[in-house]
């Protein structure tokens, strides 16, 4: 290794020692990261990838040490983009730079496979400290490793650690400081020819058989008399129920249902409360106190404040979902969920872990996008992230209820149910099409081989820290886009294009926004939706589906707060029917179905796009929007054209 290479890719200040946490999935690496860094964390994507890395600062003896939590991996021979990032960083390949030290987290209950990874890390030449976790779990399985013998045989410093309780953290700190002292160059203006280079380890190359032999030798030294037959642990007994071929599925569905309820029943009042406060009392008060012309108050309140309110309204929802996912992950159930749901998702090239974001997507697409992080493979994460917008969130339900109630009053429930079925079919079909085109590499169904962690009671503090870090990442990453776009929408709707109106006091059709809707309407003609009010509602629906009904009411000059008028049997329904009758040439029912399909299939909301951009990058987010609009248009046209022949 060269001590003169900082880790530029992970945005570490020059001269700051950098350590990487390396380990198998579920070895306790992220718990250790939280314990070391507290709330001093940043979530970022590795350069040029959609692989998430967490970086943070660990303060030791007044000095700052940068800590990078790498994706969990079984090996440095990578088989997914996430493993590639971990392998590249440890070995100093690619744009990420190189750590000064690797802390390899060894799971005492799975020492053999942990040692195999340690063998590979040692071969890179990067200095190593080994931290042995899960000693309590190993003990329940009658495995008591001798850590001194382990250190001697492996030739690296070894410390016992329980990151959940904090035991062993000081010993880890001392071991890390010693290794950094020995390996990090401190000379000013170092050119690489200084004496410290003598301390560096030389990379070596071993083949697999040599590595297995080394692993076995070290394992035999550390655990000279392992139990001949595995001991049945408490986790095994719990798994008899949770992984049962019959019982496992209803338990899994019950847990998924609970998560879904969290995104709807529990979170909805909180989201509504915050949005209501920003758009209600706070907006009214600000309108009254902001001096100057009305358009200034309009811009600040209906543009900027509305944007901020929208962003903040997602905070409780995201926080709840992150806590729920954290509990599933920390407890050890998430790996079991992947195992139970695996078969059902194989058809669309995903493994069982995709079930969690897809289920959350039916509650709200925004946290579902964030929940894709539970998947260990960036390509499958991306594929899931592209499918999530096809899951029908409750915001779309308001539109379904209005249109289905207006046009199919006797079968409204069946139509709404049918839309949810179509949503599920679109996910399956979308998965199939994506695997046949941009994701051909995922066509081959891969083996599901999962190490099952022991069950744990989740710890509150790391859970809250992790939730806080991720919510903050959403507000910073997606917040600006959401607020900025809402300001632009306000400006468009505030600028009059016909005479006799003032800025911010103009009917929709006489505003710039109305002109945009006029321009879009002809594009919707093949779907029987060639009307500026429909185009305007769909354009507004790009921002949020909750406002589609309100936008229609506004365009038809109906008070959106009048529940009788906005009910399917009210004035709004009558006007909508008359409008679609005219725009479709007398095939209003077919046009209504086309409208419903368009609402189901096109971009769910601005917040989802912003989150998609944050997680997967701008190029994928823009491409996804383009595909969603195209698919929605094609489906709507097909539904209308077929429906026209039948009605």
């Amino acid at each position, binding site marked *: 290794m060269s001590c003169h290479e900082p880790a530029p890719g992970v945005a570490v200040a020059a001269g700051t020692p950098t350590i990487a946490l390396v380990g198998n999935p579920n070895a306790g690496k992220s718990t250790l990261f939280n314990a070391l860094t507290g709330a001093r964390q940043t979530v970022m994507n590795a350069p040029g990838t959609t692989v998430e890395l967490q970086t943070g600062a660990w303060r030791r003896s007044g000095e700052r040490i940068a800590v990078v939590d790498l994706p969990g991996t*079984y090996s440095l021979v990578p*088989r997914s983009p996430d493993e590639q990032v971990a392998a590249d960083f440890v070995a100093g390949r690619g744009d990420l730079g190189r750590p000064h030290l690797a802390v390899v987290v060894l799971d005492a209950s799975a*020492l053999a*496979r942990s040692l195999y990874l340690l063998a590979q890390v040692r071969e890179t030449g990067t200095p190593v400290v080994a931290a042995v976790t899960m000693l309590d779990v190993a003990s329940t399985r009658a495995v008591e490793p001798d850590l001194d013998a382990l250190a001697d045989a492996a030739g690296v410093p070894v410390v016992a650690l329980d990151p959940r309780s904090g035991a062993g953290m000081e010993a880890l700190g001392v071991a890390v400081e010693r290794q950094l002292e020995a390996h990090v160059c401190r000379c000013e203006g170092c050119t690489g020819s200084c004496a410290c280079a003598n301390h560096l380890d030389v990379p070596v190359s071993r083949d697999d058989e040599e590595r297995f032999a080394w692993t076995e030798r070290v394992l035999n030294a550390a655990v000279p008399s392992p139990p001949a037959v595995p*001991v049945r642990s408490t986790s095994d007994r719990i798994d008899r129920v949770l992984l*049962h071929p019959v019982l496992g599925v209803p338990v899994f569905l019950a847990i998924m249902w609970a998560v879904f309820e969290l995104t709807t029943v529990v979170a909805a009042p909180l989201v509504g409360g915050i949005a209501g406060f920003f758009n209600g009392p706070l907006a009214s008060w600000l309108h009254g106190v902001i001096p100057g012309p009305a358009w200034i108050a309009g811009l600040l309140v209906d543009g900027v404040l509305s944007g901020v309110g929208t962003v903040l309204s997602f905070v409780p929802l995201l926080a709840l979902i992150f806590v729920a996912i954290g509990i599933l992950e920390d407890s050890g159930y998430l790996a079991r969920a992947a*195992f*139970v749901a695996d*078969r059902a998702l194989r058809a669309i090239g995903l493994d069982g872990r995709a079930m969690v974001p897809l289920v959350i997507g039916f509650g709200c697409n925004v946290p579902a996008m964030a929940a894709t992080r539970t998947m260990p493979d960036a390509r499958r994460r991306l594929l899931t992230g592209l499918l999530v917008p096809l899951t029908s969130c409750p915001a779309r339900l308001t539109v379904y209820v209005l249109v289905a109630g207006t046009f199919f009053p006797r079968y409204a429930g069946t139509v709404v149910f049918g839309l949810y079925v179509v949503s599920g079919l679109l996910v399956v079909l979308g998965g199939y099409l994506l695997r046949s085109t941009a994701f051909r590499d995922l066509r081959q169904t891969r083996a599901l081989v999962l190490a*099952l962690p022991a069950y744990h009671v989740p710890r509150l503090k790391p859970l809250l820290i992790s939730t806080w870090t991720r919510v903050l990442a959403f507000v910073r990453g997606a917040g600006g886009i959401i607020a900025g776009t809402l300001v632009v929408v306000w400006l468009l709707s505030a600028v009059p294009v016909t005479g006799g109106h003032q800025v911010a006091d103009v009917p929709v059709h006489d505003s710039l926004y109305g002109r945009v809707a006029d321009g879009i309407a002809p594009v919707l003609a093949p779907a029987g939706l060639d009307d500026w009010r429909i185009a305007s509602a769909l354009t507004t629906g790009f921002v949020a589906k909750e406002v589609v009904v309100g936008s229609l009411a506004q365009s038809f000059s109906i008070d959106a707060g009048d529940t009788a008028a906005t009910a399917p049997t009210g004035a709004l329904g009558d006007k909508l029917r008359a409008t679609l009758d005219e725009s479709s040439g007398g095939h209003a029912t077919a046009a209504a179905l086309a409208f419903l399909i368009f609402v189901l299939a096109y971009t769910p909301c601005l917040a989802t796009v912003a989150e998609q951009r944050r997680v997967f990058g701008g190029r994928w987010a823009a491409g996804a929007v383009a595909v969603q609009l195209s698919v929605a248009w094609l489906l709507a046209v097909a539904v209308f054209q077929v429906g026209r022949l039948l009605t």
Partner: protein
Amino acid sequence: MDLRLCPAGTQAEVRWVDLEDDERARLREIGVREGAVVHVVHCGAFGARVIAVGSDRIAIDGRTCACIGVTPLKSALVPA
């Protein structure tokens, strides 16, 4: 016989792994390689198995289990 046919409690030696190179390599890395002794801890749906490799627990889907040839040794799992 293949692993998919082993009931819970079976102790077996792995004889062959008939998978693509990278999948075979992953199994080898986590301890499922020729000559290794594994214990079937649970049977999941569609032939999936949870096996113990040492004190480790590994879940493997049914299709992959069908590609792992084993020779049963005996049935036993010690209660804690």
